Each structure stands twice: as structure tokens, then as C-alpha cells.
């Protein structure tokens, strides 16, 4: 039988893939994709827990995560476009104006 652990493990693996993406990507757009992956990984975990504990709270959290992801993408992409307009690139290595 598929148990909670299976889902959680899948979720963990997907999360790690997302993390890896976040770490190795230099392109901001690709970074966004990687974060989406991570968010989805978490959603799986929530849904699974919700299911196995027979509790709706997990699903509620997943909803809000989706809502937040949507807003993040909307604002984030807007910023990306402005950045691209300004610098002509989305490569992080070229966008190091915050050097301390």
C-alpha cells in the first residue's frame, strides 16, 4: 500500500530537485521555475498529510500557497521585465549592484 511516507519522500525528492535548481541556476527566469517546483513539492506533502490524517487544514494551506505563488509570479515577472528592460539580461552574475 502507498502510505504517507511514500508521498512525503516523493515530495522531498521534488523539493530537493527544486533546491538544486535554485542553487545552480543563474538565470532569474529559471530560478522562478525552480521555486515553483519547490512550492509544488510542498503542496504534495500538504495534500498527502491532509489525506492521511483526514484533516482539511493541509488542503487549506495548499490553497493559500497556490494563491501566494500566483501573486509572486505576477509581481516577480513584472520585476523581471523591468530588470530586463534596464539591463538587457537576467543573468544574476551581471546583476550584482548590492555588493557590500
Amino acid at each position, binding site marked *: 500500500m502507498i502510505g504517507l511516507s511514500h508521498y512525503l519522500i516523493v515530495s522531498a525528492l521534488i523539493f530537493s530537485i527544486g533546491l538544486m535548481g535554485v542553487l545552480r541556476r543563474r538565470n532569474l527566469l529559471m530560478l522562478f521555475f525552480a521555486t515553483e517546483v519547490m512550492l509544488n513539492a510542498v503542496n504534495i506533502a500538504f495534500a498527502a498529510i491532509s489525506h492521511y490524517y483526514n484533516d482539511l487544514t493541509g488542503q487549506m494551506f495548499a490553497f493559500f500557497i497556490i494563491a501566494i505563488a500566483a501573486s509572486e509570479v505576477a509581481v516577480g515577472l513584472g520585476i523581471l521585465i523591468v530588470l530586463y528592460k534596464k539591463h538587457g539580461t537576467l*543573468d544574476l552574475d551581471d546583476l550584482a549592484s548590492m555588493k557590500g
Partner: protein
Amino acid sequence: MYEMVAFYLFSVLTIGLFLITVMSKNVLYAMTSLAAGMVLISGFFFILGADFLGVVQLIAYVGAIMALYSFAMMFFDATRDIKEKNTNPALVFLLGGLSAVVLVLMFAAPIHSDAIQALYPMHEGVGNAQDVGIVLFTKYLVPFEVAALMLLVAMIAGIILAGKKMDQSLTEDMSADDEILTQKDEK
């Protein structure tokens, strides 16, 4: 049995697709595989009986978010391969791998606590959508409204940020950059 097959199938497919997303040099490939992976994740939701969540996943993620990405991509040059110089691939794999191992170890460990009480239990014989609806519009009403407001704000922000100088093409004519900058300075 079907559940098991479906689970493993979906698992393998999502992991593979997301790996493509993360590894691919081409934006288009990455995005397409991301969209496909998200569809498959909604499959997980259906298996888990969270029908409503699955639908939302399809509509919001695959429908809305991915559409946004694809529109956004039109601003950038999607045909070019993205060149990324990876300074320290070993660290990336070490951190990713380590987190994966640790998380898997943690999640694989049996959960002992039986004392977890369902805060908002599901009801037998009632559809998932109904259950969700009742909880969402009673207990989570305020957060829900706040989320709605947040989405509205995000929408406006997105329009304003991206909407400036829509008429200028950025990919072909790089000199426009300077123009924008000078205009900014004038402000």
C-alpha cells in the same frame, strides 16, 4: 493497486519532468516540462481525494501561472540557449543531495504520534469541494479575503511593472535601453 501504479507512474514522471526543468538550457523546454509536471501533480491530488485542490492546481497553475510565464517569455529571447557559468557544481549537488537524503530519511522514519487530532475533519459522504468550501468560508474567511486582496494587488503591480513602455521592443533594439535610462534620469 491502481493507486499504486498511478502513484509510481506519476512519481517517476514528475521527478523526470522537473529534472528537465532544472537542468535544461532552453527556456522553452524548461517551461514545457514544468507545465507537464504540474499537471501530473494535480494527478497526485486526485489520487489523494483532494479533488478540489487538483482542479485548482490545474486551473491556477497550469492555466494561469504557466500562461503568465509564457507571456512573459515573449519579452525575452526564448530561442537562445541560456548560458550559465556554474562556478561550483559540486556544492550544488552536495547540498541538493544532502537535503534530499536527510529529508527522505526523516520522512521515511515512522511517525509515532497518534495523538494528532483533526482540526477540521473530512466528512464521509460529502464531496471534497463541499467540505473545503465550508471550512474555507467559515474558519479561513479572513485569510481567504486577504489572499484575494493580495492577488488583486499583485495583479495591479504586475500590470504596472510590466506595462511600462510596452510599445518598445527590447530584444531587437538594445539602444532603447539608453533611451529609457535617460528618460528615467529626467524624471
